[in-house]
């Protein structure tokens, strides 16, 4: 079966998830679990690095939709970065860039998080 892996990192005050492989209906529950864990721990600044994400299906996209409300209510955000053109196309076709901030580079995203922190202080 197609492999899918999630690894966690912390970059400053941002929690980074690195996705790798195929995110489809079979593997979506793994991502769901990952989000649940972060939210439970009150970690709301979430950056999803999609550098090694080969494919995302509608079920995978649905996971982001499931948690965005909770994360934003908690004062954080879900941002994405480093998408391959193909994966970006999938996000784009569905109109996700209008709902999420998507960055080409992880640093920009982290900076954006930090900037928001500053302004809110």
């Amino acid at each position: 079966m197609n492999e899918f892996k999630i690894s966690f990192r912390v970059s400053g005050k941002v929690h980074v998830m690195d996705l790798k492989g195929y995110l489809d209906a079979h593997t979506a529950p793994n991502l769901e679990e990952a989000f649940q864990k972060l939210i439970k721990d009150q970690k709301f600044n979430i950056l999803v690095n999609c550098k090694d994400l080969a494919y995302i299906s509608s079920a995978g996209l649905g996971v982001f939709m499931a948690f965005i409300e909770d994360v934003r209510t908690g004062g954080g955000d879900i941002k994405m970065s480093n998408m391959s053109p193909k994966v970006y196309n999938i996000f784009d076709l569905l109109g996700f860039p209008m709902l999420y901030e998507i960055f080409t580079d992880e640093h920009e995203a982290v900076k954006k998080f930090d900037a928001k922190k500053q302004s809110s202080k």
Partner: protein
Amino acid sequence: MKIRKLLTLFGSILLFGAVFIIDAAMKSLDADLGNFTAVRGALVILAFILGTLYIETLRKENQLTMIQRIGRIAAWAGVFVALSIIASLLRFNEFETRAFRLFPRDYITILFSTVLSIAAGIVSAMTMLIIKDMLLYKRKKGTQRNFWILLVFFLLASVTTVNLRPLEISVYTTVFFVLAVVMIIINSFRLSWIAYLSRREKIYAMVYALLAFFAFMAINILLSISDKPFLAKALLYFSYPLHTFVQLTSLFGAVYFGMAFISTLFHLPTAEAFDRKQTELNSLHNLSRLITQVFDLNELADTVTKMTFEVCEAQSSWLEVFPTESERKSPHSDNGIVSAKNITAEEIQTILFGDTTSIRSLVFSSKKVLLIDDVSSDRRTKYMTKLKNVGSLLVVPLVSHQNLIGILYATKQMDFGFDQDDIEVLSGFADQVTIAIENATLIQKSLEKERLQRELLLAQEMQKRLLPQTLPTFPNVEMQAVSAPALEVGGDYYDIAILDDHRVGIVIGDVSGKGVGAAFYMAEVKGIFQSLSKIYSSPKTFLINANQSLISSIDKRSFISLIYAVLDVSTGELILSRAGHCPMLYATSSSIEYITPTGMGLGLSAGKLFEDSLEEKKIMMKTGDVCVFYTDGVTESRSASGEEFGYERLMSVVEEKRSCSAEEIKEEIIQRVWSYTDAQGYDDDLTVFVVRWNGAPR
């Protein structure tokens, strides 16, 4: 068979009658048969042989148990003894003795001795037949041979007396008599039937054997004592061989049943253990049979607790079953009692959850048999001392593939109620129960699966009907569509609606996810499309309103991608809006491109954000132009190596075939996707909708 029966019966009666007449005639002539004594003797023997054959045919018709056999012999022998004693007590004129011979003094003596002799013969024959059956029960190699040798000596001893006068004795007879007695002793050790009697049966066997022993001893004494009583004289007068035969038979009866009595007496202490083994064997046998027959878990559980009762004579017994994974994990989860005998739910509750380290949790962690010999003093069971009627407790886990799938409990009122035997038997029993439960659970599961399968088929049938059965036809527009779900039910949707006399609405969409959930949303979209398309003729307005309708009912992780296009069949004008769906492929004679108006999927966001994202595009189709709508099942179909079919391939297929009919284009796309994915089949729902404009009508 019937004729043989009648022949033997009447033959023997006739012969006995003839002998009686001869005797009576001799008496009236006051004469002696002299040299014809042997002929009369032969007649008597023949009569008895026929009589024995008759009895043999009767016997085969009713198969008796051992106890019934002994009882019957005891009764026959007893009645015969009573008869003989009564005859002796009558003290009529009997016989006078002359030259070793007996002469009856009157006719009544002849009658009495004849009747008594026939009775003696019948009892002897019956005795021999029944003892033969008992000897041959569980026969060994020599068993049958020994019996035949015995019988031969019996007959030899009898036959050698044919020529003797009633009060004579010959050496041959004595020799054969002694040999016969030796064989009696040898044969009397064949008592194997005793071992297979239950305790109750053994007691009956003892009583009957003792009665039979006394009866036969009495006959023996009556026949042997020197001051011959009437019975002895009657038999000697009637037939010396018969006298000998009856004497030997009664001796055999006395010795055999005497031995049987003593042997049974010694078997009695082990009878209980034997009984228990028998019960265990029966229970296990019954259970094995049940495994293949009972698929209902509750019914099975009831049988199991009932059998636990029987197997170890428990005071109470109950069974817990944990059919699912989650229930297996925790010792503190609710009990899974499926059957309980002789114990209340409260009592069970106390035993199972009365303490945090209850015996239940001990078995959960060890998965081993747990025996509490004395509940009131054992440290592990202190918490259940208030239960007065639980003295000892045996807990047997049902373990299958290292999983605890259930627990079987048995209690006894007395302390130290369970012995090593009980533990072993109940453990073996538990293994069988485990298999039975596994079996029942599996069958339950497969039934459940079958039910779901049926419902899915129904859902599939329903969903097929949500898609248009036929597309409307127009003289100048070709329309072709196909949809194939990956699973039984899918999330792809296409539809068409006639808006007015010159416009049709075309919709194609994809509900996120697959399966039954997606199918429900698809049904909802169909309802929305069929109603809203008639009201809002602008694709953008349609999508805004559709989003509003959907957003309230849709799960937040689900969304629907959709393209809505309105085609004017009189002019070829096509207006479309896209809500997150794959772009439409548009091919003219000179160009081919994806038309991608912006727009996010339905159900993602409400209100302004969604509204602002939408664009509307207008295309004026020229003769021969082709529009291809499709779902991501086409572009995301993967080859064996994992590569997607992709937008380029789709484009080149349509470019190649753009001058063909809509049907050919549709077929070509499907064929190419199929051959691309090869044997893997679809891994997503796949839908293609092709529109070809053949110029404005003239």
